[in-house]
């Protein structure tokens, strides 16, 4: 096992630069998720770590060894592809045994390792089948089995669950995490799904347009997003943003939004009066206020999911989402008042998008 260090890595395809200087330190045994919208360069970064793409500049280290010019086969990393990339002409057994056979491992050793991996992954009954005779979830497991038997330094996953249906995705998510807890192999996992990132990662790297926006544990990103992008990307439903101007009167502080609406701020809010800001509040941090205490809002759409209810309201001329675990009998068009939890309010600079 080994840590992975990414230093000032840039990547250009021809004249188009897609990765602009990325730095990430991944500790030995850590489960790190690279997350970001489609096209932000996650796969490209992962493929550079695997050795499938050249590094334009910067360097990548695996287990203390610089690997810029080491071919993929000598990097001792295993990768699970989005389309699984199983060898269609080989049985499940041969798919998993292939890398060991290439290394001329002892037959008995191969057999033992393959059977053990198959057992961990519940594939023992399918060893003689071909990939085409398996379901999506089983193929996914074979792809993982192929990675496990090698006992590599690092596992790389590129959106491995995106071809599965929703239910299976949740199940495999847990299985991959359990597998990591069992094997403790350093893992880098790419996804565009922030829920996958939040639920699986020790640490998350949020990427956007070829740069790293923030690195941190799931809860750090949720509680203290570094900027508007991370705040909007992490968390579901997404954080509400309302533009306004900071105002103060004695110990009172608020943000003056459109239509004369005042959004309350804690007195120690780190912004002076007159500053243009974006007021951020997560849907789950909006409480139903009684009477005239709260911020006025008009109910537009109500979406119950059973466990909770999402309510879309119009507030200060902006569409805002609120989530309630209690069941309120809201009707469309109804006027209500919402009060933000003051300790959960985020302020962002209107110009730079930085968290204040």
């Amino acid at each position: 096992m080994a840590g992975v260090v990414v230093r000032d890595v840039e990547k250009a395809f021809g004249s188009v630069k897609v990765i602009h200087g990325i730095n990430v330190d991944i500790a030995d045994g850590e489960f790190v998720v690279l997350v970001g919208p489609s096209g932000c360069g996650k796969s490209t970064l992962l493929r550079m770590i695997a050795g499938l793409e050249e590094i334009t500049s910067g360097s990548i280290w695996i287990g203390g060894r610089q690997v810029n010019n080491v071919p993929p086969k000598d990097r001792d990393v295993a990768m699970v592809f989005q389309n699984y990339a199983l060898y269609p002409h080989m049985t499940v057994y041969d798919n998993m045994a292939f890398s060991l056979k290439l290394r001329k491992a002892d037959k008995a050793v191969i057999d033992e390792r393959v059977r053990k991996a198959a057992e961990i992954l519940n594939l023992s009954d399918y060893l003689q089948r071909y990939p085409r005779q398996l379901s999506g979830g089983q193929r996914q497991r074979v792809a993982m089995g192929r990675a496990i038997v090698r006992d590599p330094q690092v596992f790389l996953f590129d959106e491995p669950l995106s071809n599965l249906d929703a239910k299976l995705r949740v199940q495999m998510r847990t299985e991959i995490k359990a597998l990591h807890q069992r094997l403790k192999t350093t893992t880098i996992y790419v996804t565009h799904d922030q829920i996958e990132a939040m639920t699986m990662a020790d640490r998350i790297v949020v990427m956007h347009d070829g740069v790293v926006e923030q690195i941190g544990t799931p809860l750090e990103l949720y509680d203290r997003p570094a900027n508007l992008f991370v705040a909007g990307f992490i968390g579901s439903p997404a954080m509400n943003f309302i533009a306004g101007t900071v105002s103060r009167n004695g110990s009172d502080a608020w943000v003056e939004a459109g239509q004369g609406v005042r959004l309350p701020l804690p007195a120690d809010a780190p912004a002076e009066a007159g500053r243009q800001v974006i007021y951020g509040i997560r849907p789950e941090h909006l409480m139903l206020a009684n009477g005239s205490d709260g911020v006025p809002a008009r109910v537009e759409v109500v979406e119950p999911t059973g466990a909770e209810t999402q309510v879309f309201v119009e507030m200060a001329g902006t569409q805002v989402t609120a989530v309630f675990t209690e069941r309120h009998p809201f009707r469309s068009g109804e006027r209500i008042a919402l009060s933000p939890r003051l300790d959960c309010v985020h302020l962002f600079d209107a110009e730079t998008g930085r968290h204040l």
Partner: protein
Amino acid sequence: MATVLKPQSVSPRLATLSRILDHPTVLSVIFMLPAASILLLFLTYPLGLGIWMGFTDVRIGRPGVFIGLENYISLWYDGVFWLSVFNTLLYTTVATVLKFGLGLWLALLLNHSLPFKAFIRAIVLLPYIIPTVLSAIAFWWIYDAQFSIISWSLERLGLIDRYIDFLGDPWNARWSLIAANVWRGIPFVAICLLAGLQTISPSLYEAAALDGANAWQRFRHVTVPMLMPILSIVLTFSVLFTFTDFQLIYAITRGGPMNATHLMATLAFQRAIPGGQLGEGAAIATAMIPFLVFATVFSYYGLQRRKWQQGAADD
């Protein structure tokens, strides 16, 4: 609307007829009949006629009578016939091996990202789109005893001091024809195999590279098995075309010198049309059938879906 549709009253005979016509087996036979009869008429009839003529002593301008196996018995003792069998097997084997070796190599090259890829692919197809007779005439010139450009170049380079007699010497003539056939056949093989190569997902090569396979092992364990289905199809067709080749031989050597380059197809034509012995020519042509049947049976097994190809392919 609450109208109830009543079953239309039709006569029981009509009902039975329509039920029979709705039966899938009956229906499929009826639908196949036109195509089947055309096949029967235009494929089976000439074939049957050819085989029948092999058992008669028919000549041009004179209807023959049934003579049993006489044509075949005389062929059995005919050295020229056996020479043509030998030539056909040699021609087919050597040319096929070369076409596949070079064709695969070319396909692999073209599958890489080359500069001017589309242009090079178009050039590769050239030998295939030129009419055979035209390229045969070109080769005839290339192999000409006095004007051969090959001899000329080799002499200029100081490698030979006398012009090579390409078509006058039996073995030279055989190799020359094989070279011409290979030149003409490579595009077909290369383009078909290139199509096969392009269906192989690049991520399989990446997975293999990460699994520790070097270039040769990736070729051996990914490319070759994945190419096998299309390879067996192309191989079968190539063998059939080469075995029955006629145009190149007839245009370049006419089977000469001294029958040294006669294939079974050219010999059959030679005996039947210029020689007038339709029955004997037909017998020679019929003698090709067992070889072709063998190749077809081989292809039948080669073309069968391999076990790993069965099942859903949503990857």
